[in-house]
């Protein structure tokens, strides 16, 4: 069976050009870049090149730092725990502001700090599913050390007003971290235009390999390392650099930016085609205004069709999608986004996310539309409520 991958917000296929770029660093140029000899020497130009690609990719200035990490989760933990050791632990600052929309790596790091006496505010999304700069402003107190708000949401694709939030943070002298995992490759991330202090990303969300990511730290902003034990990354992150991973991430970043226009036209066109077709089904709800979302994501809620049952049927037909609220998860709480936008309680367990990439084809979308219609008919026949 031919399979169709529509779960690109979970992870992506590695672009073959990225694989080609990393391949020589396994069996040929395998030196440790910290070595003095030729094996080390020959690797370093490629790392410099990868840095150029990463700096250009997010519009970092040469005075800023991009620390190579093992993943966005590591970068995020470095920021949250670093802020604790730098500020929260021993100064008057005792407060972090984040949102209910964040990835667990933010939420759980913050929960961990709560056990150490840190106060955390988890802002709820508004009726549009967004966090406004106004809401951030209202939550800031003279004890606030850090605001952490994602750039784009993984579940709905909704893009948050990071520019406005950054202005509020700057005005109040509060550090801003943004999780840009779902933004890179889908929209322009330019830190020359938007002032954030920390930004984290992961290569596998933009057609790079798993296990490599980046942490941007603005010039002059301090942050102690999470990993100690070496002088790599200017002492900000110890550990031998993952050379193939870093080269791959540089290449993936370059390709992601080259394809931004394609993402905004062709990927968006296919997503819109899928979304328009789904909207023809009775009693279906798409979360978030289309123009406020990343071009690849649609999150739908179909009355009477339980989310996991629908992705089961899609999987039987070779289509990969994901559900917001799995009934096997330890918590059965309705997705905060569905609650926030005022959806009926009955829809809490119907959310399904479809996320495209630049590798998605028109035929795949056509087959997906056909299959979802078929599955919805079958499951509604079974359903108590339809």
């Amino acid at each position, binding site marked *: 069976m031919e399979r169709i991958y529509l779960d690109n917000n979970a992870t992506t296929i590695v672009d073959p050009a990225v694989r080609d770029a990393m391949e020589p660093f396994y069996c040929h140029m395998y030196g440790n870049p910290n070595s003095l000899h030729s094996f080390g020497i020959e690797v370093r130009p490629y790392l410099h090149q990868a840095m150029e690609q990463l700096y250009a990719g997010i519009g970092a200035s040469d005075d800023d730092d991009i620390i190579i990490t093992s993943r966005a989760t590591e970068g995020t933990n470095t920021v949250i725990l670093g802020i604790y050791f730098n500020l929260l632990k021993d100064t008057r600052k005792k407060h972090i502001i984040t949102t209910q929309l964040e990835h667990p790596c933010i939420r759980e790091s913050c929960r961990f700090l709560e*056990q*150490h*006496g840190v106060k955390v505010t988890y802002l709820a999304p508004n009726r549009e599913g967004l966090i406004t700069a106004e809401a951030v402003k209202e939550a800031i107190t003279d004890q606030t050390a850090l605001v952490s708000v994602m750039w784009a949401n993984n579940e709905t694709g909704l893009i948050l007003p990071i520019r406005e939030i950054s202005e509020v943070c700057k005005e109040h002298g509060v550090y801003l971290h943004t999780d840009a995992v779902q933004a890179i490759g889908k929209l322009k991330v330019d830190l020359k235009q938007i002032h954030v202090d920390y930004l984290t990303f992961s290569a596998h969300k933009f057609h790079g390999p798993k296990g490599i990511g980046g942490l941007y730290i603005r010039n002059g902003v301090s942050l102690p390392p999470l990993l100690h034990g070496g002088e790599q990354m200017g002492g900000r992150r110890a550990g031998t650099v993952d050379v193939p991973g870093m080269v791959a991430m540089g290449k993936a970043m370059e390709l992601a930016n080259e394809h931004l226009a394609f993402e905004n036209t062709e990927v968006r066109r296919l997503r819109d085609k899928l979304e328009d077709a789904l909207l023809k089904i009775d009693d279906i709800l798409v979360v978030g205004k289309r123009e406020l979302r990343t071009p690849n994501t649609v999150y739908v809620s179909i009355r*009477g*069709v*339980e989310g*996991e*049952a629908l992705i*089961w049927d899609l*999987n*039987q037909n070779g289509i990969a999608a994901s559900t917001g*609220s*799995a*009934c*096997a*998860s*330890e*918590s*059965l709480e*309705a997705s905060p986004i569905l609650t926030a936008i005022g959806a*009926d*309680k*009955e829809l*809490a*367990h119907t959310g399904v996310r479809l996320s495209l990439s630049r590798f998605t084809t028109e035929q795949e979308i056509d087959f997906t539309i056909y299959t979802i219609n078929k599955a919805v008919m079958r499951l509604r*026949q*079974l*359903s*108590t*409520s339809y």
Partner: protein
Amino acid sequence: MAKSDLIGGELWEQYSDKVADRMNNPRNFGELTEADAGKLGGKLIVANEGAESCGDTVRLFWIVDEKTDVIKKAAFKSFGCGTAIAATDMMAEMCIGKTVDEAAKITNLDVEHALRDAEDVAAVPPQKMHCSVMAYEVIKRATSIYRNVDISTLEEADIVCECARVSLQMVEDAIRINDLTSVEEITDYTKAGAFCKSCIQPGGHEKREHYLVDILARVRTEIERERNPERVQPDDFSKLSVVKQIRAIEAALDEHIRPALAHDGGGIELEDVQTDDDGTVRVHLAYQGSCKGCAGSVAGTLTFVEQTLRKEVCDKIRGVVV
């Protein structure tokens, strides 16, 4: 944790073939009507259970021969995941040909057994077990409608763990008879908490009336009281003056906690004692030496300190690291 727990994520691949097959092709779905009941000369029973806002619902249809109480036909409708649909389908099938009283004895465990491919391999992974519970509950509902009695008369009293059908009495007895001191031991002895884990502590998959952590704390206190009636009791503790409260805590720290911490080069100091309106006693503690900054000091060590203070001083104590 062990080798088999480290990767995680397994779910659908742990379904038996029977579960997958019944999810794809349920045999007994649909509706039965008064007309169907008339044709078969039986009584139509329609029972609803669950709510979509909670993730699954099921509607069970029976046609029952009123002379013999035998269920002649059964059908269902379901809003739920694959396990819920497959379990309900199997349950409906198991009802057919049984009397209502026989059917009322079917449990979710029987349904899960019937869905197994091999006798000793579970049909669904542990965290999916609760999705079959509704299949059990809806039979009780249908029986209560047929018998025209209140459903509470048919339900077992005080079930703590719905997945494994373990009652409060069974949990309490297991703790007392075997002198259990941890939730893990309760799970080993009774299977309660082995599946969806909702009944272990608040904040899990669904809200429960009883939680194993609370039952354990209560029964342990009772056991300790029986064994050592002289010791300071919680009611007494709240009546003590602050100075005496501090002395009682310091004494427990000296006797039971500090020696253990000193063994690892650490220590602990009492900083403050505060009693909340709900009676919770917040004991503010500061770590010294190697405990300070140790990752375990806010996890395992704190649990140890808290549990010891609860046992020795007052069961309303909560440890707060400052």
